[in-house]
């Protein structure tokens, strides 16, 4: 019984992948099941009723480093998870490419960097990345408590690798969460993500 349900879920996932490679703001965010760095299954549906942030990640990418070595990403993770937001970091780097890590390497990294996502989803096959059309690291998505995608794009408005730019950047993720939680429409709901390309298998 459980196997059949799992199979059905896999089929739905495949069907979704075949139909669209990307998601649009205002549309329902496609559901997924993914294994995290602690070996636990994470279902998007588990977080219905909460805001969910998806953050595409590659620890070797200079744009990701900008936001982790400065502590900016960790600051955002702590600030928003403290307010009840679910923060899922996603690693879609294929084995043998930059940013690919084993679960234990990732957990070590989280500890060293004092990162505080809710969970890190291991996506070496790239299916979750393709499902959302993730293009860069970082690439940020926000899903509202109803399961609607409300943000797709960059982390902020300075597409550079310079940490010194962070202080005078507009952080699109914080802006969108603030607006949405305040009952306002998200002004910048879709922006051009910037960074390294996601290192997909194909």
């Amino acid at each position, binding site marked *: 019984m459980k196997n059949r349900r799992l199979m059905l879920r896999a089929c739905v996932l495949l069907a979704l992948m075949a139909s669209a490679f990307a998601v649009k703001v205002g549309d329902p965010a496609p559901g997924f099941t993914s294994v995290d760095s602690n070996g636990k299954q994470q279902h998007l549906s588990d977080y219905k009723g909460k805001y969910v942030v998806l953050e595409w990640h590659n620890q070797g990418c*200079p744009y990701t480093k900008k936001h982790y070595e400065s502590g900016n990403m960790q600051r955002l993770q702590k600030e928003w998870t403290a307010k009840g937001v679910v923060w899922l970091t996603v690693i879609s780097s294929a084995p043998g490419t930059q940013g690919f890590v084993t679960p234990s390497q990732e957990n070590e990294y989280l500890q060293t960097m004092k990162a505080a996502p809710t969970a890190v989803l291991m996506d070496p096959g790239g299916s979750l990345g393709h499902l959302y059309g993730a293009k860069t690291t970082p690439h940020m998505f926000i899903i509202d408590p109803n399961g609607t995608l409300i943000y797709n*794009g960059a982390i902020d408005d300075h597409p550079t*690798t310079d940490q010194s730019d962070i202080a005078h950047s507009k952080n699109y993720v914080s802006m969108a969460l603030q607006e949405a939680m305040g009952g306002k429409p998200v002004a910048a*709901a879709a*922006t051009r993500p910037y960074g390294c390309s996601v290192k997909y298998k194909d």
Partner: protein
Amino acid sequence: MTSGLRIGLALCFLATAIATAAQETPAKHARVELLSRQSAVAAGSEIQMGVHFQLDPGWHIYWVNPGDSGQPPAFKWKLPAGFTADEIQWPRPERIQTNPQIADYGYHGDVLLIVPIHVPQVTNADSDKQDKLQFAAEAKWLICREVCIPEHAQLGIALPISAKATEDPSAAKLFAETRRLLPRSLPRGWNVTARSTHDDFVLAVAAGKRILKAEFFPLDPGQIDNSAPQKIQPTPTGAKITLKRSDILLKPITVLRGVLVIAGGPAYRIEAPVRQKIQ
């Protein structure tokens, strides 16, 4: 002569030699230098300078719109008083598609990014013809293959002043070759318009002749889906090119700007007015 003096003189000589010639700066996976088409500067003229990248095989840098990932090079100029630098003149890019979902726009191999420099009517060094003018650019760029490396360099060149601007023949050749790669304005009689449909933009190119193969490079990010294949449909008077709308485009646009590269031919600057779909 003491050996100290001798070394000192040698150093002075070396310093002078460096100041007169453009320096090729070794960077990661590339050699980069500041070049001038002119070997001397004349008051009131325009000189052509350019940052010359010689990239290692497989490595690339980016166009002004980098596409799905990456970042274009940027230069911060330090020029003699009264001199001003124009915008970078971007040669036609190539499409760099690493997988079906991600397409970038950039350059491989040998790339010259030309920047016109405007010379004031009167230069400070006019009184002393021996003086050389120092031009410097702080260049920042991202170089990628499978991975990306942010790079920067301080580039410089010194040029003498003369009554008449003179060309450096070896540089002039490279500048002339690069200018052929710059997008030009549409030929007289050509016309390009765009129509917005639910999923696509359809570019209608009227050229008075059939176009079999062409490619569009969008200047503004986030309008078209970079990685989607462009469908070209030749017509007796040109072609129709279907471009998939970007998922991050939420509002209607009135103009589609970019570069149209005709296969085997030149590249043209496009500013196509966009007609909205009829609801």
